[in-house]
């Protein structure tokens, strides 16, 4: 169940995208998101789809991983699709017995929204599949660095994020282990009313919190005993570099989004 959430899992492969500076990828994703939300017209959509497909192939991540990432969100995609289909005013193309109007405009909007959602999910997945959590937070720290002048604790934020990301799999694993152990003692997490189900979670949450606090404590001690004093004066094992590849990526992305915006507003 918990293991099915593949969104946000790094796959250690070797592709140009894996080697790219995380800052390029983060800013690139932001640009792509802008593109996805402004795109209009068939040429624009074709461009966006083609580019996303290109990036997906470039990432060398198996296609089925992307499909799996989409799976938990099918419901949302279909649901918003249906809403758009029936609730958009316009030329009616079909009416059923319950006076639900399916309109032409609604159908177009439903398809557009579905494409946007899918592109959105896939392009975020590209980032998380090709960027290790560490380099992701490194990238964010570097990007936020200019804001330290106005008092933003960039390093601390990034550190908090990497710790949180680092412990997600551990917590999932731990949750599974504890839930199995309690199930072995006859605990039943799946049946009964809401209150009963909430109560059934206690045997799982208490040990989970205890172990989370213990881990946090141990981690703090381990960091202090290795002289962790925050970000000042800290150097990196793997410094991130802006290379030629990143420059070209930037050029391509900016032109693409430029075209998308031009298509929309000009």
């Amino acid at each position: 169940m918990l293991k099915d959430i593949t969104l946000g899992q790094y796959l250690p492969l070797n592709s140009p995208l894996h080697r790219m500076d995380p800052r390029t990828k983060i800013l690139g994703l932001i640009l792509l998101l802008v593109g996805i939300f402004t795109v209009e017209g068939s040429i624009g959509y074709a461009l966006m789809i083609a580019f996303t497909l290109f990036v997906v192939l470039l990432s060398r991540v198996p296609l089925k991983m992307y499909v799996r990432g989409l799976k938990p969100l099918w419901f949302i995609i279909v649901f918003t699709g249906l809403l758009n289909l029936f609730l958009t005013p316009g030329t009616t193309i079909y009416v059923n017995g319950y006076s639900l109007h399916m309109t032409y405009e609604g159908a177009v909007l439903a398809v557009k929204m579905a494409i946007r959602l899918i592109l959105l999910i896939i392009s975020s997945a590209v980032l998380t599949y090709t960027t290790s959590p560490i380099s992701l937070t490194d990238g964010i720290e570097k990007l936020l660095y200019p804001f330290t002048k106005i008092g933003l604790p960039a390093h601390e934020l990034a550190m908090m994020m990497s710790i949180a990301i680092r412990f997600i799999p551990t917590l999932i694993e731990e949750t599974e282990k504890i839930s199995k152990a309690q199930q072995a003692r006859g605990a039943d997490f799946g049946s009964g009313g809401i209150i009963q189900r909430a109560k059934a979670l206690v045997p799982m949450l208490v040990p989970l919190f205890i172990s989370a606090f213990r881990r946090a404590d141990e981690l703090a001690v381990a960091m202090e005993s290795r002289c962790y004093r925050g970000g000042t004066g800290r150097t990196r094992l793997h410094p991130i570099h802006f290379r030629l590849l990143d420059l070209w990526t930037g050029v391509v992305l900016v032109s693409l989004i430029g075209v998308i915006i031009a298509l929309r507003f000009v």
Partner: protein
Amino acid sequence: MGITIRNLEHIYMEGSPFETKSLSGINLEIQDGEFVGLIGHTGSGKSTLIQHLNGLLKPQKGEIIVNGISTLDKDADLKKLRSEVGLVFQYPEHQLFEETVYKDVAFGPKNQGLSEDEVRARVTEALHYVGLDESMFDKSPFELSGGQKRRVAIAGVLAMRPKTLILDEPAAGLDPASREEILTQIRALYLNSKMTVILVSHSMEDVARIAGRIIVMNQGKIDMDGKVAEVFGEAERLRAMGLDVPQVSRLVKALKERGIPIDENIYTIEKAKAAIMLLMKDKREA
């Protein structure tokens, strides 16, 4: 009626780049009343195997029949299965959650839907089995020592009165005295009740001392399966798997190689001591 496993296979995270085949081609028959030691190096699939025995994991291929019921059967009563096959996980003290020792041990029997009196009787019995008396009942499990916590957790499974008891590394991470005590208690429990016990362990000494049959796992497969003497007789094969025979057994073998007439099938310190004392006595008398 025992446990039958046929052609069991298990793959973790199938279809992802991280997939690991943790069990393959497992065929096994465990009779009621056996004491089985399950050994194998780290990652050999021991924990994965035992989680199949109470239906926490379902066979991806093959089948498991516990007391006449297949765990794949859609109508199989998993709750009943889990109270018949008690499973104590590795580091079970991490699953304690109640305010008092008593309440925590009562969690299992309460889930079985037993009456208040019956629950009390079982909890008291289980805690006595693991050597904890009434003075501990109202303490918070979190203020106990590691070894005591471990015992409370084991009692939590015992209180369900399982027909089969499976323990995953029950003595791991304890000091020698607590180790000794827990293993002795398990042995006593086995002898006094008619339970089937499956003990997972890294320690050859522990297994040699208390198990009747040993199953050796290697890379997801059963590599050896037999009486203690048969398995430890093949020291070379065990060593090739990164395991070892008990130290005492090495000593006995070395003595034998030097021409001292000692029984080769000795795996515990007590027996070795007795045998050596006897030899010394014979020698003195001669």
